[in-house]
């Protein structure tokens, strides 16, 4: 199948072709790949795409997982509407 048609990151609409091209350019750790392609920066924070990219990167580079620099998940882990932080007791 055409790598330009395979979506790796649904939230940020990044394709397999984008990922392979970035790896080719030298983005061979996840932290840098994330900023370059915005992969993992969408509302799911990479829950769906980072494991897939991790596999692609491992295959392409032969590096082990800690060398690939797994990004930090930031709170909130799921998107929360701002209105839940408006009121009440938490001053």
């Amino acid at each position, binding site marked *: 199948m055409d790598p330009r048609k395979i979506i790796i990151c649904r939230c940020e609409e990044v394709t397999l072709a984008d990922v392979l091209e970035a790896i080719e350019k030298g983005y061979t750790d996840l932290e*840098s790949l994330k900023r370059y392609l915005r992969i993992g*920066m969408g509302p799911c924070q990479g829950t769906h795409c980072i494991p897939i990219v991790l596999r692609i990167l491992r295959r392409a580079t032969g590096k082990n997982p800690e060398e690939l620099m797994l990004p930090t998940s*930031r*709170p*909130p882990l799921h998107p*929360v509407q*701002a*209105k839940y*932080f408006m009121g009440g007791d938490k001053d």
Partner: protein
Amino acid sequence: MRYDVVVIGAGINGVYTTLELLDRGIKKIAIIEENYPGSGGTFRCATGIRASFTSREHVVLMKRSIEKWKELSKRFSFPFIQGGYVWLLSREEHLRNFKEYVRFHHSLGVPTRIVEPDKIKELVPTIKTDGLVAGVHDPIAGKSNPFTALLNVLEYLKKSGVEVRYPEKAEKIIVENREAKSVLTEKERIDAETILVAAGYGSRGILSTCGVDAPINNLPKHAMITEKYREVFKPLLVDWETASYMVQTVSGGFLIGAELEEEYNKPPMNRIEFLYTAVRIWSKYFDWFPSTHIIRYWTGYYVMTPDHHPILGPVKDVEGLYVSTGFSGHGFMIAPAASEAIAEWIVRGKPGIREAENLTIDRFKEGKLIHEIAVFG
């Protein structure tokens, strides 16, 4: 291998200074980064860029920076959007102060102006201006994308033969006979003609290994971003009463920073009250804000100096040692001009922009702190 220049820190300043050195014909350069490029302040920042400051040094350097942001963004295909800044003022006394700042800006050619609430509504569609006495508009200010602004240039550096080493921590600067000789990393000793410390929050630590005391302290800061939305407004907004800012990033998310009381040099921690503070401040201005989705909250440091101005240039007592740090919350916007000044210093012995000479580390020993007409955003 002996390098012409070894740069410690792959933040926007280390990376842009390397570019300026390459452009001046210096080729053998290594950058040492303890984590990954951009991981310090650079990838955490709001990318606000403005020249409306209250010291001559800041204004002159930032004006030069804006010129360079235009060039660099074209050359390296990343966004620089001159959408302006708008300060939102809710008190008469603040308006009085701002009138003075605006006069100062005009004296140095920065075209800020006081605007009525109706004009604010024009600049910032959907905003509610109840309770505001006025606004201040800086039309030449702007924003960028921190990721492509750094990574696109870094890619070019690597292609041009710069060695970018990460993750590798610089642990010691070796000085012999008052001359900087090498950087000792966790992996090896790297010799260099010139060493540049552009290590952000780590600068004080690495400088202390060769007996140089840089009076910088790291202040924890908080920021959050919502999901992406279509463009609502272009300017970066500052609620002057609370010193909180909001910007719709070039990617579309609303990024907010707000003040919490913090202690210097404490590891930044997530504090839920930050989200309450941020949401309350900006829900007053925008009816739609409560229904946006917050997707990330992160922290980072402002690397502060006693006079809130950077430390730039050579260290008098150590031949071949240069510093570019202590940006006090403005290190992204100033990076193009600061980097140009440092490269000029290294190559020609002078920074090009005269005002930069007032910013060397020796000013603290000599008691020549930078004077501001007011302490400001």
